[in-house]
């Protein structure tokens, strides 16, 4: 099992986190379509790199939901960081996200991060092409903020209600499964067209496993470099538990430590058992 060297020179994709969890006060909590935007003040936190994530938990009543859950903190990419205010966008899929979605301004969060390794800049001369599926939009917004106009973004959502979140991106090309907004169909259809027309792109994708797998396969066919912001079951988020491993061509890697953004070329498949819903 080969392991990247420990004392690597400072990795541009990673900001080192303050050691330990810290309290952060919720400054804003509002709905964006069926998603929940949660902003909190993180004066003690350094500026994260796009694609990095945080482990979050409510400081009060983290438990007592369905099946007495949640117990462990949950992983969330950061949406944006403006000054000291850190923004997250949540999709309520279970007791952990449901509890966080209940939080209002003034409530306390436990926050650990920024964690993991984010996106790497495209090679010189390649244009960044951002591909998001549903809640997968989150790390792409952070990346768009940094890349500016050079980036073009393709977003897919279930329906118009979910597609409300598209307004977080600058000028995304939009597709919805039921066609109620943007092009009817999958975001991978848009990607197929775009890759056909422009072979100088570097793809950055985030979304549910099946979508990432489609992107991986497409990028491989078109020989386009691609970076996938993936998900897997996490307990710690900082390399302690070995729970979040994903299989790669170099064996299992801890997604929280060597990801969550992985080079698509290193993967035989983007489908991770136990990830997604």
């Amino acid at each position, binding site marked *: *099992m080969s*392991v990247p060297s*420990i004392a690597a020179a400072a990795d541009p994709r990673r900001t*080192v*986190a*303050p*050691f*330990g*969890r810290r309290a952060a006060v919720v400054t804003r909590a509002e709905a964006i379509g069926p998603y929940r935007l949660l902003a909190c003040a993180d004066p003690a936190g350094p500026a994260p790199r796009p694609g990095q994530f945080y482990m979050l*938990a409510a400081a009060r009543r983290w*438990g007592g939901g369905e*099946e*007495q*859950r*949640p*117990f*462990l*903190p949950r992983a969330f990419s950061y949406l944006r960081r403006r000054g000291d205010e850190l923004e997250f966008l949540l999709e309520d899929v279970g007791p952990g996200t449901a509890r966080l979605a209940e939080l209002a301004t003034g409530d306390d969060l*436990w926050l*650990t991060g920024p*964690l993991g390794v984010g996106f790497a800049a495209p090679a010189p001369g390649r244009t960044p092409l951002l591909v998001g599926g549903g809640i997968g939009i989150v790390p792409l917004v952070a990346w768009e903020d940094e890349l500016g106009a050079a980036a073009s973004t393709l977003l897919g959502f279930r329906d118009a209600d979910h597609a409300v979140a598209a307004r977080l991106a600058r000028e995304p090309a939009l597709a919805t499964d039921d066609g109620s907004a943007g092009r009817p169909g999958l975001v991978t259809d848009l990607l197929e067209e775009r890759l056909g027309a422009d072979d100088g792109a570097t793809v950055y994708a985030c979304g549910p496993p099946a979508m990432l797998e489609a992107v991986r396969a497409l990028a491989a066919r078109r020989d386009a470099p691609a970076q996938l912001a993936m998900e*897997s*079951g*996490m*307990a*710690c*988020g*900082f*390399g*302690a*538990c*070995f*729970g*979040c*491993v*994903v*299989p790669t061509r170099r*064996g*299992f890697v*801890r997604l929280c*430590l060597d990801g969550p953004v992985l080079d698509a070329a290193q993967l035989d498949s983007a489908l*991770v*058992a*136990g990830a997604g819903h």
Partner: protein
Amino acid sequence: MSPTGAEFCGLQLASPVINASGTFDALAALRTFGDPVLEAFPFAAFVSKTVTLAPRQGNPPPRLWESPAGLINSIGLPNRGRDGYLEHDLPALARLPVPLIVNVMGFSRDEVAELVEAFGARDEVAALELNVSCPNVESGLVMGADPAETAALVARVRPLTAKPLVVKLTPNASDPAAVAVAAQEAGADAVSLINTLRGMALHPHDDRPWLGGGTGGLSGPAVRAIALAQVAQVAARVRIPIVGMGGVSSGHHAVDLLRAGATLVAVGTESFRDPAAGRRIAQELEEIRNRLHNSPPKSGQSRPDGSEVPANRRESPLPASGSYTSG
């Protein structure tokens, strides 16, 4: 030794709080949090994830399932193996500010012997923890569940090193205290307990187990009462020191284990919720011991509106072997 320190098998530790094997990775923490991890290392000693003779990839994902007030893991002991650990981890852990305890597991006594010999000889290694919660592939028995198996293993490795040998017991045994006595009689310097309790979860949508490894191990607050009972029962039957662990998430829980007879306390799953939990729990423990030191527990006189401890005191001594009947 500082008032808050702890002496364990000849090691002088800054506090009684160490990590539980497999729940803290000093090298990964260094990459994630940088040097503060070493400057304010959260544990008084660092216990490695289990090292086996051959490298292991570990079980296929998923490896985690959140259980009520707990966690089931089926990680499958991924590690670089003896040689990988010697070559890669030991040099990188040289900067560790606390003693290193290497946890080893073998699928036969010979395998454990090779591991003990290799790590016992290294100056960087302060002590060895034998993880006997695994099946002896030759006998088919889980070593740690059987006093005779455990005695034979300890007897086999004892002569190979003068360094402290800590036998880590499995709670999935009829009489863990008998296993502890067997370890002691065969020359173990200490015992540590509890390891995880065997548990399982099924996939929400169909009949298969969720965990890639089938069954896994339950840990966290859900097992704390089980750990306390087993530490108390072992403490009543051995004289060697005990490392107590199982669901510790506060100084109060650490005090309970110390009161039940443990010399050190290990923190595992709580570190996933709070990466610096070890340091917090050591501080909370110190505050409680200072409070106790300054004001011994009140005799319990009660005020009319009951704002104090109830007056009735039961002086039932801690039972040696719990006269436990179910229900």
